[in-house]
């Protein structure tokens, strides 16, 4: 008579322990993955830096007595200007037209 190697009760027991072990493992791994995320949600204390060029809050100019022409109004900030660019020499100007971009 061939002895049944895995009786039903034993199969059940193996399955139960396997499930418990897997659940335990998943819980540990899950906790480890959550841990850094939890740390990230705590905003680090901002490092105090003093900006040399503090741009004043955007405001409207004081109205001149003889009026103000609004050529363009863009409340959204434009892209930051190019830093450390000295002179942009564009194409040769047409006679009588110069360019002024400042220095």
């Amino acid at each position, binding site marked *: 008579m061939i002895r049944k190697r895995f009786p039903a009760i034993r199969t059940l027991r193996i399955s139960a322990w396997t499930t418990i072990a897997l659940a335990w493992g998943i819980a540990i791994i899950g906790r480890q993955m959550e841990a850094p995320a939890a740390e990230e949600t705590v905003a680090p204390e901002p490092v105090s830096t003093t900006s040399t060029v503090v741009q004043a809050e955007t405001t409207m100019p004081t109205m001149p007595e*003889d009026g103000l022409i609004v050529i363009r109004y863009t409340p959204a900030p*434009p892209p930051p*200007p190019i830093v450390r660019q000295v002179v942009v020499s564009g194409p040769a100007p047409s*006679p009588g037209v110069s360019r002024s971009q400042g220095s």
Partner: protein
Amino acid sequence: MIAASFRAMGTTVQVTGRLDRDIASTRELFEEVEQCCSRFRSSSELSRINGEAATSIDISPQMGDVLQVASDIRDLTHGLVDAGLGAIVSAWGYDRSFEKISGIAEPANLKAESDWSVDGRSLTRSRGTKLDLGGIAKGWACDRAVDERGALIVNAGGDVRSASRKSQVDVMDPWGHRVARINLGVGALATSSTARRRWMTPGGEAHHLIDPRTLAPSASPIVSATVMTATAVEAEAGAKAMLLHGVDGLAWASSRPWISGALAVWADGSIYATNGIEMEAA
């Protein structure tokens, strides 16, 4: 009409004239002025003056003329544009040609010392006063080129002086876009910007426009100021002063009889102008 360009005083100079000799003479003039007034040439007269310990110094006729104009400009702008603040500008790192500036330490314990006067060929100044004639000398050279050297239009890095009734100037914002085409005609126009000559310090970016009231780079909401006047040296000074006046800059410019028109590019990209400016919007 002949047009040419060359490098001088740390920028590109564009000249329009009727004859070749007008161009050549203008180029010579810029070389002479640079040799006289550059802070960055060790052989210049200005470097000699700044290096001397004496408080009373004999100066050349050309230096005397430039310093007299600088003195007038200081009065005209109530001290906002002062050539005597060279030591402060240097302390912030702008002590060499702009291309050679690298990161510097933020200066500490700055002292506002600007005490100088000029009388013909004699300069009197306090020991701590160092002169910086960069912008004034550039504008002065543009004016001399048109008044004495036959140039019709001279544009030195945004300082424009014109003797042509039909001259127009494209004003560019710091991002390289054309803001407006201004009908300049006979006169001058200059743009001063805090967005171009910038460099890094440990505390952040610095730029060359030092506010004499704070002894630090200006925090004005104006990033670029353009002013129209009769002469380039006035335009250069007017643009700087308007920028330093911040939110009141356009109102200030509008109330100055020597400024005929002004335009400002705001930090948020908005653009405003006074009524005195004749232009075609871009």
